[in-house]
């Protein structure tokens, strides 16, 4: 039997916010009945303030999947979309007092449903957002994308294929993609080791950040008429500023975290902040 925390069991026994909101402002559906767990998240969002007024879930899955879904709804009600989008699977697991390693994928499902709902919200509003290019499905048994795997590796400091399986389920079915996952892990960590923020001089930092902005970030922002500029670097931070269409776009802070910050953190290893001036 799993060692579930008392708090998790309580959220399983008496889950809060079960159900579906009528005429929701956002819907996130992830997982499937075939894969063994699935979550439908519906949100009511204040159009002025972008605050999540209400959240309800319906979950097919094990006890920790139900508890994670309920925890997620509790965590996001009252937050703005932008604040909510910063919630990670670790936050969900921590809220429940921790989850067994093999059940971490339940918390990842919560995070992904929220991402899907936010995506759905922006699409409905007609706000174009830049989405990642790593939507390739790596694990075909559980329908897990490269993006999800990379996110789990980064957030949870995963180093082995088994770690990735525990957190995302990827590789836990037929096992055919395990070689692929191993390569993703290797590439992720080897890329990081080339640029260690703490070991670089300020001149090196400026050169590398400028290079990443020019090659990886600005070409994508320019498609929507915006771009981003490097203002300064310090011992532990990179300071940037949006210009053009980005400086007035309501989705710019989400672009900042999902594209700018993400790309820099992908390419440069070590502890540092990415700040928007």
């Amino acid at each position, binding site marked *: 039997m799993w060692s579930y925390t008392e708090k998790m*069991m309580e959220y*399983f*026994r008496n*889950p809060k916010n*079960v159900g*579906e909101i009528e005429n929701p402002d956002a819907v996130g*559906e*992830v*997982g*499937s*009945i*075939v*894969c*063994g*767990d*699935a*979550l*439908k998240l519906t949100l009511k969002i204040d159009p002025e303030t972008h605050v999540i007024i209400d959240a309800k879930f*319906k*979950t*097919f*899955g*094990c*006890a920790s*999947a*139900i508890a994670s879904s309920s925890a997620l709804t509790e965590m996001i009600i009252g937050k703005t979309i932008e604040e909510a989008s910063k919630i990670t699977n670790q936050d969900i697991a921590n809220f429940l007092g921790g989850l067994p390693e*093999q*059940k971490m994928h339940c918390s990842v499902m919560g995070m992904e449903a929220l991402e899907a709902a936010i995506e759905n919200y922006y699409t409905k509003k007609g706000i174009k957002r830049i989405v990642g290019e790593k939507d390739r*499905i790596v694990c*075909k*048994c*559980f*329908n897990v994308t490269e993006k999800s795997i990379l996110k789990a590796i980064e957030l949870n400091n995963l180093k082995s294929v088994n770690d990735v*399986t525990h957190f995302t*389920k990827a590789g*836990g*079915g*037929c096992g055919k993609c395990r070689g692929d996952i191993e390569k993703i892990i290797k590439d992720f960590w080897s890329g990081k080791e080339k640029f260690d923020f703490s070991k670089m001089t300020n001149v090196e930092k400026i050169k590398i950040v400028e290079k990443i902005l020019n090659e990886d970030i600005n070409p994508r922002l320019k498609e929507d008429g915006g771009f981003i500029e490097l203002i300064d670097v310090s011992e532990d931070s990179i300071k940037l500023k949006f210009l053009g269409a980005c400086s007035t776009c309501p989705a710019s802070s989400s672009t900042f975290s999902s594209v700018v910050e993400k790309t820099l953190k992908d390419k440069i290893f070590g502890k540092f902040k990415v700040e928007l001036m």
Partner: protein
Amino acid sequence: MEKVVYLDNNATTQVAEEVKIEMDKFFSKLYGNPSSMHFFGGQVQKYIDEAREKVAKLIGAEPSEIIFTSCGTESNSTAIYSAIRLFPHKKHIITTSVEHPAIFNLCKYLETQGYRVTYIGVDENGMLDISEIEKAISSDTAIVSVMWANNEIGVIYPVEEIADVCKKKGVLFHTDAVQAVGKIPINMSLNKIDMLSVSGHKLHAPKGIGFLYLRKGTPFVPFLIGGHQERGRRAGTENVPYIVGLGKACELAYKNIELENTYVRKLRDMLEEGIISKIDYVRINSKNALRLPNTTSVSFGYVEGESILLMLSEKGICASTGSACSSGSLEPSHVLMAMKVPMIYAHGTVRFSLSIYNTEDDINYLLEVLPTIIKRLREISPFGEGKPIFGIDSCNNHSHNH
């Protein structure tokens, strides 16, 4: 927990009171080693002999054909390794896709050691086709191993007929009978099975004792090598209290075999009928196959097995799932996958396994609690009758084997 309703007897059983009493004096009174020259050890031997006779009687064997082991898994490993060491040039094994991990994972391991393993599949009722086994046998086949009854779905396999086929082809045949012995009548004098594995704790003996039946005249290489115990076929000082306990448990099982097939079967059927009449979207797996009288595998649509188990557990009811999340792996059980159980059901499977110690009250209590649990979980589930099932598209273009 106040009330405990134990419906997980295929996992393990309670030790019969009579067995416990019988074992007691062999811990601190008659604790001698039967191999010793002195009277104190020597006097123990006759109790082992008696136990061996009781065990042999339960399965219609000769006492000399019984080798005591530590568990069902040891018996299984002994049988398979004996065959492959007897015929080191033969590199092929035949088994089924629904074996217990004690055989399944051993075969998976042997595949990494240069062996070729054929896993015979089953149909949607969990039944297998003997002609497939016959076709798979070649001059390279060292052994065929097919379970007598399946632990998850309770299906009984035609092992006696398979043994005939193997005999005709000159190949050794072993059966993992851990779930069958004590639940259905077995008479080894009427068949040609070479080796048969049994575990004590599935028939009201304690954990840590089992035996391997080895037909007289069957070539054999021991697994544990050392002393001369068990006529040199299984070294290691005899586990006297447990052997005596197993003997008593087999004596009781012989007496109770009728009850298993009348009283226990009636309770099981009552449970199935109750579930079908009280809950929608259920399927009894392998309902139309020949099954053990004590086992039922029930799949509940649109809900997940672990959630059902935990909610049952909160009410003091013990059962188990054949599906993924409870066992640490992520796919539904290999047995249900081999049977291609429909996807809306596969993950919501619960196994109830009864014993003679269960009562009608137990079943009534389960039938009172279960419909509420399923109803509650279906309220939480996004799936249900007439509701769109999302996420399927990406799953349809790969093989899930559901």
